[in-house]
């Protein structure tokens, strides 16, 4: 009885090892294909996400490809169309009528890899732009002052 059990275990081991050996030697590498989605995120600059906004995606020829609505985080994802490289994404805020933005996503361009496609121009930090704005205002004020000064000068020189 005992010897039978030992043989059984040995046989089982042999089978198991055979199975595992075949696995080790072959190691078939399988690639499951999964094409992810192109994600866009809409938000109001310096404020929260743009929720429930209507998103329309157009392909290279300007045909409507997909449309949908952003989630609570302002996110909207869509599967890419095989062979299509450029998409135009238009976002129209529902809760804030009059706010619309559009961006072009080009898959062959490097920015996609980083996952940070631009949305409407170069992003400068907010404070830089505030300072820039002040600069312009001071510049305009200076120009106006120079003009007034020139006028006053002319007025009094004429006398």
């Amino acid at each position, binding site marked *: 009885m005992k010897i039978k059990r030992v043989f059984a275990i040995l046989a089982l081991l042999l089978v198991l090892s055979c199975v595992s050996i075949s696995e080790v030697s072959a190691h078939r590498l399988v690639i499951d294909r999964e094409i992810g989605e192109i994600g866009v995120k809409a938000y*109001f600059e310096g404020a929260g996400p743009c929720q429930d906004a209507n998103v329309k995606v157009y392909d290279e020829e300007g045909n409507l490809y997909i449309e949908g609505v952003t989630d609570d985080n302002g996110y909207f994802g869509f599967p890419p169309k095989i062979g299509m490289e450029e998409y135009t994404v238009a976002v129209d805020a529902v*809760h804030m009528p009059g706010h619309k933005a559009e961006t072009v996503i080009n898959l062959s361009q490097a920015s996609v890899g980083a996952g940070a496609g631009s949305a409407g121009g170069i992003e400068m930090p907010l404070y830089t732009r505030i300072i820039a704005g002040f600069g312009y*205002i001071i510049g305009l004020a200076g120009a106006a002052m120079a003009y007034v*000064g020139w006028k006053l000068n002319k007025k009094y020189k004429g006398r």
Partner: protein
Amino acid sequence: MHISDGVLSAPVLAAGWIITAVFIALAIRWSKKKGIEVEVIPKLSVMTAVFFVVCLVHIPIGPTCVHFILAGLLGIILGILAYPAIFIGLVLQAFLFQFGGITTIGINTVNVGIPALIAYVIFQRGMKLELLSSRREFSAGVLGAIAGGLSVFLVAVFTAGALIASGEKFTGVAVAIVGAHIPVMIIEAIVVGFIITFLVRVKPEVIGSLGCDKK
């Protein structure tokens, strides 16, 4: 409010630019006639800067996100010159922050500038007629609050009007814009009321467009 490019119809955009051009021309003519005083320029610049920055103060309310406007304050302090000030502020915002579109600067200036001028008229008339009380500080504060709050309401109404004129659905837009601005209205009424009370007490000559409204 900053309406983006591509939302409004061409006639509305054109009308916005025409009205803006007329008002700026009027403001320039008027200030020429009165004679530009040198001290007006810093005042104009400071108020433009205030308007430029205050629009960045966002108040997130539910899914919407509104910001302060202070059109009433600009109107009360600058008079008709508030219009060019708002125009400059909006131009800078459009180019630096992409707030609103380039083509919509005209109509956006109308939406903010005309309520500012209405606030000015209400304030000046009210002060002249001594509508509320003979105590100047008190009545200036209350009038400032009314003009400040009303200007926000009018900005919202004008913006909704521009959108409706371009074919948006009436109720949705009106509710979304005017409703979202109710808190701004209340806060701005309080803020403008206090600022005007303070200015009347400390430096009353600041109020009034060219600083030469004698009282």
